């Protein structure tokens, strides 16, 4: 599983901050925003393919956190609670819009060291195709891949967010990756 440095945060500290927000010190939410806004943006961007949509959805997640602060119990990781809000928000958004937009960030690929210009172009093309294949998957399959590969979440955390078991999530990720490989192969061979 990908170990994202963005996720190496102290969950106790997150909980303490959120409990302060709940107690009325809402200024502390800005610290949680600094910690998690990029991670949430990454999640929504990988799900939606749109920078604008992702920014709006990040804003909505923090708005909901602010409004639902009295419901926060302080049990479990703050990030799991936050991603549960993000997951529900995305589900609502997808139900209403059902549209993925992949066109606005094609120039953002990072350069890979040690590759010639041609190789770099080919590499970028592969990543573009892989991303297209990722977006050809159903919403729930794409989500488990994103949560496990990019958000650095353990399978039990994902299971907690999606309301299922760790074993079921592991198998779901495997099947999603298998389908992704098939879709990727189809796009490569076009």
């Amino acid at each position, binding site marked *: 599983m990908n170990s994202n440095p963005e996720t190496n945060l102290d969950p106790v500290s997150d909980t303490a901050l959120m409990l302060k927000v709940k107690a009325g010190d809402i200024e502390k939410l800005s610290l949680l925003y600094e910690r998690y*806004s990029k991670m949430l943006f990454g999640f929504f961007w990988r799900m939606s393919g749109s920078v604008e949509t992702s920014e709006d959805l990040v804003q909505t997640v923090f708005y909901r956190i*602010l409004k639902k602060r009295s419901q926060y119990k302080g049990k479990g990781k703050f990030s799991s609670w936050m991603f549960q809000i993000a997951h529900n928000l995305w589900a609502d958004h997808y139900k209403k819009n059902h549209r993925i937009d992949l066109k606005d960030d094609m120039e953002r690929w990072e350069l890979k060291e040690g590759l010639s210009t041609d190789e770099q172009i080919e590499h970028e093309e592969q990543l573009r195709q892989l991303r297209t294949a990722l977006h050809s998957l159903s919403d729930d399959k794409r989500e488990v891949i994103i949560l496990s590969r990019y958000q650095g979440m353990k399978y039990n955390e994902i299971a907690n967010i999606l309301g299922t078991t760790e074993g079921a999530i592991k198998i779901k990720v495997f099947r999603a990756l298998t389908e992704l490989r098939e879709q990727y192969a189809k796009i490569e061979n076009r």
Partner: protein
Amino acid sequence: MKEEKYQERIMDYLDGNLTAKQAEELKKALREEGYDLSRLDEMDEMVRQLDEIRAPEPREEMKEKFFHMLEEEKSRIESKERSLDALLKPFRTLLEPVYLPKMLYASLILIVGMILGHWIIPDKQFQYQTSLMMEEMQSMKTLMALTLIDQSNATDRLKAVSYTGELSNPDEKVLEALLKTLSNDPSVNVRLASLDALSRLIGNETVRTGLVESISNQDSPLVQIAIAELMITIQEKRAIPEFEKLLDREDLNQTVAEKITESIKILT
């Protein structure tokens, strides 16, 4: 392909959670199941490529919007607190150090007053309801007594007399009925019962006069002796002329005559 049973193990491999030995064992097992290992390598390569898809940076506007939202929420909370503060201001004044001892003293007096009031004065409503109920029961028993006392059956008349004993303050009608029964009832037992009932009401002048007047109407030795004893007990001197009239009767029982004579001596 029977890769189903190896799905979780393959995920461990792709996540890099297997040792070199465990990875070899997995590959060997998959090979034996007829699984094309190049598919595993392709998936491994694809997973590494997935990790290379980096998300872009969000625009600065996103952060600005967040802080704007936070400021709005803070203003909303502050404004809510200010209105609550304005609402509670008069009460807060009362809690200032100057007024606090007076407030506490007044509260203490109020509480003590309430406790004493509750303790000393019973619930008026309850008292009223109880007295109303008692009155209703009294009038019901009076009605029963007056109805039964005219019945032909002696047992009913005895019951009527017994009801009058339960009345705390029998009215004139009941007293008249008891005196009439004492003088005229054909049953000795009923007459004795009414005498017993009247003996509890000797504080009433009507009863005392009625008892004296009834002496000459009695023909039962038992009743005559009982009345004589009662007159001695209440020291009713007005009974003497009535006793003398009885002594003049030729049919008077000898024992009664002795009792009456003795009574006249005591009362004289």
